[in-house]
């Protein structure tokens, strides 16, 4: 599916979908923070946003209305993962409450996936709460499968599903090469629970 023929209602179409630009931080970031933190029990520091936007601003898409007000946003990253794959990760996604259920998130995720495909990603992963029906439904319709259930993944004690979308054949059998393995120690901490580092340091991994 290309970004243009995504199933969308009139309302989703009236919006403008734009890529984040690093030199417009002042313009965009406050609105992004505000939109995202609405759904968080604790705020992210500005450094979390910058961590993603500085390195992968091209994988951040925003839905703006005709007044340039932010309606929806998606924040991602794409980098080699210790498993040996080139892994895309959807870190944040939110649509303004008044505009939900109109396919806006679907469009944002589609754009991000296309961006990752263009960036030669093998797979896309994310975590979402097992009770977040809207989010599960939206990702699963696009092709994500649940790969794991993560007990008490969030600080509030809630359990998550890890969702995975393979983009290329042979992803499952990729192996980390030795150079990557040597980095493993750093990576594990570097990824923490924002990605699977936290709970996936399985005993036998």
């Amino acid at each position: 599916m290309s970004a243009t023929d995504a199933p969308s209602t009139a309302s989703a179409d009236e919006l403008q979908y734009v890529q984040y630009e690093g030199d417009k931080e002042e313009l965009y970031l406050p609105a992004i923070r505000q939109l995202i933190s609405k759904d968080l029990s604790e705020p992210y520091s500005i450094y979390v946003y910058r961590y993603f936007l500085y390195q992968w601003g091209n994988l951040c898409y925003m839905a703006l209305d005709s007044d340039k007000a932010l309606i929806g946003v998606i924040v991602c990253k794409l980098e080699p993962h210790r498993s040996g794959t080139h892994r895309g990760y959807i870190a944040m996604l939110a649509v303004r409450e008044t505009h939900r259920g109109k396919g806006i998130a679907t469009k944002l995720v589609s754009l991000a996936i296309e961006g990752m495909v263009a960036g030669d990603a093998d797979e896309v992963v994310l975590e979402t709460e097992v009770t977040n029906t809207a989010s599960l439904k939206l990702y699963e319709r696009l092709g994500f499968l649940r790969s794991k259930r993560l007990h008490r993944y969030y600080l509030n004690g809630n359990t998550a599903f890890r969702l995975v979308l393979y983009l290329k054949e042979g992803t499952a059998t990729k192996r980390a090469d030795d150079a990557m393995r040597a980095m493993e120690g750093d990576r594990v901490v570097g990824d923490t629970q924002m990605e699977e580092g936290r709970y996936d340091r399985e005993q036998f991994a």
Partner: protein
Amino acid sequence: MAQDPLRANTTPSEDAAGIAHVDGSGSAKHVRHVERHAEAGLPMRQALKQQHKIAETQIHDITEKFRTAAGALAVGQLVKDEYFTLFESITAIEIMDPKMDSGFLQPGETVEESYDALAPLLPEEVIGIMDQLLSYEMAWHTGYPLSQTLFTSVYIDKLLYPESRVFEEAQFYRGFVPDDKRPGVLLEVLRAYCLALIKCCDFVIAKIVGRDYYEEEDFCTHTYNRVLFVQVPMDVFQRELNAAMERLVEEETDMDEVLRNALVTRLEFRLDMLTALDLECPIERLQKYWPTILKSLTLIDETHHLGEPVPDAFSTKIQRRLASTVPPRPIVELDFKDAFQKLRQLCDDCVEATRFAALPVDPLEYQSFLWSYASRTPAPLPYSRAYLSTILFHPNTLNTSMSVPLMDLRTLLLPASPILDQSNWTLSPPRDILMPKPPRLQLALLIDEFTERAGQNYIDLWTALGQNRCRLRRMLGHVILGWDQLCQDTAAVDEDLMRVVHDMGIEDEVFPFPLTTWVYHKKLWMMEKMVLLGFEQDIYFPDEFAGMYHFLSEISSGRRTILFRIQAHISDRIYALQDHRTTSKSTSTSPPPSNPQDQPATQQSQDLHDAHTYLTSLLHEATATTALAAALSTFYIITLYLRLLPYPIRPFSTELLRHELRMKPFLTLQPPEVQAFDESVKSLQPYGPYLEPDDKRVWRELGDKEGLLWRVVDERLKEAKEGLQGLKKGGAGVARAGGVQAEWEEEVKRGLKSCVALGVAVAGVKGVVGALAEVGRDGGGHGGKGLGEDLGIRLEIPGIGEGKRYSEGWVVGKVGKVDKGKGKGKGK
């Protein structure tokens, strides 16, 4: 997504493998975690290193350099160095942000709480505080940190901080207090209760960190540098509790009897709790303590209403003084009712765990017990799981005359076998090392080599069975890979073994390649469990059911084939033994060459018969699994064609990619267990794609109740029922689940009920397929007219944990009628 940003601020979790044994101190443990990370030079550590160096730091003025460098940047331009990781971004805080900066005070807010811990309390208030503490204690047990639970108590804080040099200093005050402020009896009662509660926490942490657990996911061991009386022995706390009880009775003579009893009950409960949690508690006495606690629970519950809450005795502000980088987070509120429920569950689960000590020495009984324990609902809390694994890994349990894997191997494959004859281990090697070793000694050495190699894999399986259910599924994936490697490593040992067997001329008495067969059988069993856990954890979509049950059926069927071969071999041996006996009676020749010397023939025959019965039970079980999985798979294939299940278009994915993702845990296994994609499509889509079947027979076949797929469902369902009935008839003991007979019987019953439910669903669908011939006339791509809800029915998939599935792993759809006219368009 929507992660809580502060998660990473607490202790980084450790690999289970990295967890050392009990050191009796939660806090010391924590310090060690940090040090470990230090050595690795990880980010968090760098910060610590810098702190240490402060003393030697020299001061350089870099203002100019900084200005020059900064001048080269545009305003607002970001600079990031490569050491700035996601971890650091998450742990960073913004100063003066009220939600992040723990030092930030709202106007008029004070740093310290103003609650006076020496103010006299009413008995009702003491009860209220005690019960509130109990709620927080249980909230902690379910996984919340002490900082948001027990450590919000002003009383607990006073006792722990500043740390007392001698135990007597642990008071609600430090230093001198005027006589009129000295705590009275009721405060002493509360103090004794709190002290014992703190010691209970110490015991709990020590028990949990002594086993495999996952920080934060299961439990938070963080004590924020507070020392939970690690060094103070238990009797000190018992003395305090007893003294408090005495003073209550002797000095508070005016107090309402009911209130006093309520207080005494709570002190007694703490006393019992302390005894039960004691780490030194000898394994044979474990069973004694929990029932007493369970009794006092009822009394606490009945008197809870007497309590008067004292909300001011708890404060989030205390968190500011705890050694943590996390800003104060809200207190975790767990209702007393729910907390009490958890406490009862904790006790029940521990009682159940103590039954482990009474099991017969048999790893297969252990396995059944562990499986059943892991399946308890609600899931046992981390403490109870640690409690059970402490018993499991107790030297008493493991100190058996025969190694654990070997006992398992003997039961399945080598009953009464010359290979495992005790005397093999008594032979000594020839003096001359150039001389070949006696064959029996060679056998013993090979078996030793194998058991040494397999021991860890066996422990890994047990360890996995002790984890929370989500992790069990994921860990099984790793354990399976470990057993796969074991299987490959064992091949060489098996070959040597078979050569010796051949040289000794006892091939008839040995199942070929017994070691690899045993490993392989266990591996398949684990794979089946892992797939079933996937269903139980809601991992698969309805349109994946057909494929996953098909996969399950294939694995299980492979295991069944092995079991058949083993059983045939055992039968042969039984006949051979009988033959020999009849011939030897008539001809009186010498005993068979390999008959183990110290094993009379009757014992041998008994062992073989036992093995035969056990295999029969296993076969029933494998048959049931194979057949029920196949029946369900076929049923879901049918319902996919009938469009009774949602089948999303999934623009970014393909069937091939999803197949690869699903099969990922099993792709590397040897021999290969995963069907090639094309093959699996052939099995799963016999009439072509579900939405566009290109085989014209599809509607005729599905419309005919005797059509091929329907026949498969009916036959396999019948087989599954027979298997389960056979299994039930054999009983739990024969299945090596005698220790958990009730649970085992329940599980079999649930299997049978699932079969019945599938029968009902099949009938429901068959009832409406008559009209399919109509659909068929248009051929394939008719756009689904006459299918799905046009059939007048809907297939509902029962969710997990709602009690709507008879068995969580066997998902049987339920057929409901569609209210024509109204139902259309609703759902898919």
